[in-house]
């Protein structure tokens, strides 16, 4: 019986921006089903790390694998298993919320009925704004639309970049619910945040990113909840 490959495997990963090394020599394995928080100051390399895993940025050196697929050579396989929530944006301002979500789901290869789309938007508290153009949305509403898009994606790995930013308390509760859902459906989550106090209790591990390196956080060392059994693929 083969053990299924880890959700994330970074091997000596380094990424350069211009002349600066934003990430250097990161080696990290994350097993399937884990919820891991990346914390660290702005510019520490959290977003870069997420974007490498999302296939948006190529490693300058080393390699990144998602469920065993190389993010450069097998990018398509990686993309069909990951979904990313950006810090902000990702929607088209002249399209309505429903149209944006429909476009996203269809690009994920799904076909949702209008009522399913409505329900998905209602789920993040956008029921009333579904038919409004996104340019009229507040930044919090845009973020909620991003959450709806993320939830619809047929992904096993979620990459969340500052999911709580720009959200009110109600919005933050949606993120918490989303994380619960991830836990119960066995999704792997990598979450970047500079306010880890909120998620640390939910997470299996907190990693500290600073100056381009990643290490275990000393403040939040112990997993708060026991790790559930990981579903094994391919018998």
């Amino acid at each position, binding site marked *: 019986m083969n053990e299924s490959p880890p959700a994330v495997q970074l091997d000596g990963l380094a990424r350069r921006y211009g002349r600066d090394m934003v990430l250097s020599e990161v080696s990290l394995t994350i097993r399937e089903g884990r919820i891991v928080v990346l914390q660290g100051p702005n510019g520490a390399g959290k977003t870069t790390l997420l974007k490498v895993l*999302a*296939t*948006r*940025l*190529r490693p300058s050196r080393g390699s990144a694998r998602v469920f065993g697929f190389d993010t450069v050579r097998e990018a*398509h396989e990686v*993309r*069909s298993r*990951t*979904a*990313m929530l*950006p810090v*902000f*944006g*990702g*929607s*088209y*301002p*002249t*399209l309505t919320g429903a*149209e944006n979500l429909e*476009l*996203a789901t*269809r*690009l*994920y*290869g799904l076909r949702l009925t209008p009522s399913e789309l409505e329900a998905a938007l209602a789920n993040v508290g956008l029921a009333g704004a579904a038919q409004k*153009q*996104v340019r009229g949305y507040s930044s919090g509403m*845009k973020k909620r639309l991003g959450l709806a*898009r993320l939830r619809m994606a047929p992904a096993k790995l979620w990459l969340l970049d500052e999911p709580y930013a720009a959200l009110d308390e109600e919005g933050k509760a949606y993120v918490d619910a989303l994380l619960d859902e991830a836990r119960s459906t066995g999704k792997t989550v990598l979450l970047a945040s500079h306010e880890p106090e909120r998620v640390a209790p939910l997470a299996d591990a907190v990693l500290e990113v600073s100056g381009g390196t990643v290490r275990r956080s000393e403040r939040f060392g112990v997993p708060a909840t026991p790790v559930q059994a990981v579903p094994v693929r391919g018998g």
Partner: protein
Amino acid sequence: MNDFTPVLLIAGKDIRQELRSRAITVATLFFAAITLVILAFAVGSDEAILTQIAPGALWVALAFAGVISAAQSYAAEGEENAFEQLLLYPIPRASIYLGKLISNWVYMGFLALILLPTTAVLFDLPLGSHRGALLLTLALGTLGFALIATFYAALTANLRARDSLLPVLMFPVVVPILLAAVRATTSLMQFGNLEMASDWIQLLAGFDLAYLVVCTAIFRFVVDE
């Protein structure tokens, strides 16, 4: 989902956005029309010269507008960081190119359909009897232009000085299209000669097919970071 669904989705999305915002139309339609008027005005009232330069004027106006339209279509993607998101969907990168190619082409075709009669009136040059061939020339010429413009606009989208860079990079590549398109239009409108135009139309088609393959094949390297 087959590989062409995302192409149509992206093209449809672009067209719907344009119908809502009219951003590209506003930026190019009047600009192109003004270009025609200024050219007609500069030449003066000499009918012979007016009719002679008319096809050239039409394509120069279309070329200017095409550059702006392609650049604008990527600017719209960048507004809310939507392009970043678009690159993360499990779709071939080439389908993003083809989708934006179609929307740019449709837009340039629409512009051509407006500018053609405008040119005919301003430059005193009747459309002639080979309307079908004339439409084909416009279709192939604008396609060739959209192919290069869409490709290079993606390449320059996140570079400094992109607005002035795009035409500079594109121009030497599109010279053959401009030349063949002007010649085909001249043959049809001035000489009313289909036989004379058909060779140029074939050259346009050959150009389009060749660049369709080359640009589609290497587009993913342009957007990769």
